[in-house]
């Protein structure tokens, strides 16, 4: 492909109309540099080899434990230009609000982030008003409670980490704002974890209050299986199977960690388009300007 483009553009740009061009005019030569070229080639090959060996050695050797690694799922937003599935994000928000939010906070997400991404402003306001937020101090210096506003963050289920640990038998439910980029495997891991609960294999004793999940490092997880078939009812009528809920909540968590996801991919598309256009123009201009120099004959006379 590149060779064809190069050849055609060379022919178009470097056509010499007079026909006086001959290879004999090549008085300026680079003889005697073959040895140097060989050295350069050797150094280049050695560098490539060294980088390859370095890359091979730098690959971390992961401890092969008993945990399972999640398979790769075909997420609908996997492609370079693929946006998040907004309907799925909205269903996932419903799952989070009705199931996950009982234990997990999302302290970096505000109600205003929902507006225009997965719901209208009125719906987001209605959602925000359902929670009571501590505000203040008022004129008398007292803190007071008021209904939430769009600018409020999602409510935290526990006042602090100690309260969360105390309520969950010592395990801390992690904040879910950035959980997808924070875990190896991302959505694949979260989905596999949510749907992967099973009986502990023989020989593994679990403490009280722990559950067995082969995808969780160590196998013993403090979170009870949270998603069942029909655990909630979707507002758009999608059958709420456990795997559907898990898939939706994974896409929601991806959106929550990256609300700019769609805009980012759109900007990427624009950048690729404009830069390929400009690259073509600058290549053409370079050839155009250099064509004079390249077709010039230099002769040294005594």
């Amino acid at each position, binding site marked *: 492909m590149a060779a064809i483009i190069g050849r055609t553009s060379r022919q178009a740009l470097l056509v010499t109309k007079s026909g006086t061009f001959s290879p004999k005019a090549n008085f300026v030569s680079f003889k005697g540099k073959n040895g140097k070229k060989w050295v350069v080639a050797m150094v280049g090959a050695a560098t490539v080899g060294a980088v390859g060996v370095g890359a091979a050695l730098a690959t971390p050797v992961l401890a092969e434990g008993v945990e399972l690694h999640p398979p790769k799922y075909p997420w609908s937003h996997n492609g370079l230009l693929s946006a998040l599935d907004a*309907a799925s994000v909205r269903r996932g928000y419903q799952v989070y609000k009705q199931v996950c939010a009982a234990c997990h906070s999302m302290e970096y997400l505000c109600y205003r982030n929902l507006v225009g991404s997965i719901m*209208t402003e009125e719906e987001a306001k209605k959602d925000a008003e359902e929670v009571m937020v501590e505000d203040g101090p008022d004129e008398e210096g007292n803190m007071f409670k008021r209904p939430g506003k769009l600018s409020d963050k999602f409510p935290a289920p526990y006042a602090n980490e100690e309260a969360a640990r105390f309520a969950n038998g010592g395990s801390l439910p992690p904040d879910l704002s950035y959980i997808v980029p924070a875990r190896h495997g991302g959505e694949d891991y979260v989905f596999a974890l949510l749907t992967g609960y099973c009986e502990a294999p023989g020989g593994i004793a679990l403490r009280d209050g722990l559950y067995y999940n082969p995808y969780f490092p160590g196998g013993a997880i403090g979170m009870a299986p949270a998603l069942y078939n029909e655990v909630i009812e979707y507002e*758009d009528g999608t059958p709420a199977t456990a795997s559907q809920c898990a898939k939706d909540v994974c896409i929601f968590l991806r959106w929550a960690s990256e609300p700019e996801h769609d805009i980012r991919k759109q900007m990427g598309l624009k950048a690729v388009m404009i830069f390929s256009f400009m690259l073509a123009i600058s290549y053409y201009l370079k050839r155009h300007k250099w064509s004079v120099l390249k077709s010039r004959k230099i002769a040294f006379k005594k």
Partner: protein
Amino acid sequence: MSFLNKVYQAVFRRTSTFALAVVTGAFFFERGFDQGAEALFRYVNRGKLYEDVKHQFGGAGEEEEE
């Protein structure tokens, strides 16, 4: 020859009109480019964007949760 020559004589020859042509050209090019790229993005992702699925969730949200 004739058309390009006319354009050259009318626009590109004088610096003032040339600069004006650059500014207006940039305005229209950017606008067209942005809209074209966004239309392409919407076409690639049709059915997945919020604008496409808005209607599935009822008007003004009647029931959300308990």
